[in-house]
């Protein structure tokens, strides 16, 4: 049985953490919960891409006077402070 090692790679005699044959690995990853995280990350990326694509050219609301006023003040603030 393999042994846990200290930080220098020296065996410490602790019980092994290897669980050979315990479950089939997906993509070479031991724990299905980690595989799920990998899958959900990819799924999240795909969902965001599809959502963005579907809303790429929606009818956009026209700029309101308050939007223009806000942008004017923001630009002036940044120019003054830097």
């Amino acid at each position, binding site marked *: 049985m393999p042994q*846990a090692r200290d*930080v220098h790679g020296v065996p410490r005699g602790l019980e092994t*953490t290897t669980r050979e044959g315990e479950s089939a690995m997906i993509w070479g990853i031991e*724990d299905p919960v980690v595989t799920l*995280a990998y899958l959900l*990350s990819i799924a999240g990326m795909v969902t965001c891409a599809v*959502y*963005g694509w579907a809303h790429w050219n929606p009818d956009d609301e026209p700029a309101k006077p308050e939007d223009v006023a806000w*942008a004017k003040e*923001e630009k002036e603030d940044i120019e003054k402070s830097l």
Partner: protein
Amino acid sequence: METFTFVVVIVYLLAIGYLGYLGYRQTKTAADYLVAGRNANPVVMALSYGATFISTSAIVGFGGVAANFGMGLLWLTVFNIWVGVFIAFVVFGNPTRRMGHHLDAHTFPELMGKRYGSRAVQVLCALIIFCFMPLYAMAVIIGGAEFIGPIFHISYDAALYLFVAIVAAYVIAGGIKGVMLTDALQGSIMLVGMVALMIITYVKLGGFTAAHQMLAGMSDAVPAPLAAIGHRGWTSMPVFGWAKPGAAPADAARVNLWWTLVSTIVLGVGIGVLAQPQLVVRFMTVKSRQALSRGVAVGGIFIFFMTGVAFVVGALSNAYFAKQEAIRCEIVEEAALFDPGPDGAGALSQLPANAPPEAVARAKKFIGYRLPGDTADRPLHYLLSTPSVKIERDVDDGFDVIRPGMIAIARTITKGTTLKGNSDTIIPIYLNSAFPKWFGVIFLMTLLSAAMSTLSSQFHTMGTAIGRDIFEPMLGGDAARSVRITRTGIVIGLVAALILGKLVRGNIVALATAIFFGVCAASFLPSFVGGLFWRRMTRPGALASIIVGLGSSVFWTVFVNAKTATGLGVCQSLFGKATLIPSSFSPTWAVVDPILVALPLSALAAVVVSLATKPMPAEHVAHVFAK
């Protein structure tokens, strides 16, 4: 090589400066500012989002944490994408933008202050930002300095000063004007750098599945200190559970890693991102609802390739270091002795020839070597000498070859670190060891891009917090004085981050980021969400939520969470014990992150106090929520 590196850095900085100037010239008026946003190339626009979100902290700090804790860190990527991008943009984005524009709010504290009609709310939010944001800025700066040092062969301190000087020049020269072209160039470089990092790593380790299998097969190499807290291998989640009150320390500790990984790293950072002041402001600066939707598309892809790649590569670096690394070098000394101090936990320092016998007895042996191209006046590189290290003399064109055969964190143990190593240096060491020098220089651009885009918005947020949000409402200052104070605030923030970066080093980047994100979530999230979506939320409710969230978060950090309480030492000096957890409570409470306690308490305070107090005047609510 250094000349090449300097030339690349200078060309990069000139390109950033030129694009900033170009973009600035194209947006002369406020109308241009809006129109440019509406007509810009969607890819250019979307890439600029990601550059602001991701910093060196995510790549270097959390990549190093993944090298320690394993691929379970991918749950943070899940939260980053689903919460930090999808929910943030789709649910919070447009309401924040509309309310910000309608109330003419330009900072997060100003938005909160105007929503609740309260200067106290505005000042309190600004004070929290000004006090805690240097912690996050420090994390970003350390992440950059740890990488720059080895690239330029300079000390950590010199790298810290150099990095801060570059960032300060960028910020002072107007980096925050960083209109989309600048941000987009930075985002593009980051994307290319991280995609290349992922592909090369997988190819090096034999392919997608083979690389994971190699890592999975190393679970017997988990260091004893990590196995003792529940580490089961780098492709597995740690042991889950909740220790019973009075459990033996060894049994109780078996679940610690799970709670650290999930509560501090995944939830602390994953949820905390929703209440980041600089992110909220970003929604207000988005020019249209259409831009927000487009941002979701590229934002999701961008975050996957930033954090997902950093975490996967971080974990896989163990397989590279243990199975493949071969250092081509000239070995200068095979048995240099480094002393970790009497308690074995101090910074390793080289023993002189006349060292006392007790120091020699506890000292560790290191191998000192020079890399090809290193001159004799440069300090040697040191590698811990262990039974796994194999040395081949004079085998490669006159050079020696060292095969360390050790995992990532052990590879970081060197002169100046403790025997625990420094996870913040794992990614830099991996890049320097596994990739050609030119890739290191390209990756330096990636990190500079990540840091500059994030830091410029951080320092601007700190400056406006003290100038616009504290000085103006409290003292009624005039605009000119407010600007001077804003600039002073930026300088104070820079200096504070620099001092913190000098004082604190080693395994700190991810922790500091998590603390800041946690404080933001507990203090701001309930009042921010309530402010956007709940008309019945009142001013006392918001104040109570912020105070309870901040108070409970700080209390838990200083007196309950074992890692932070021990590090700060306040609990020990006041009460004579490491944490205030009573013995009748589960010892697992000591590893639960503050966010799991402080955020629910803050939300409860918001709801209870709002319902218990008089609703805000109908005309104020109508004005705030006007379409």
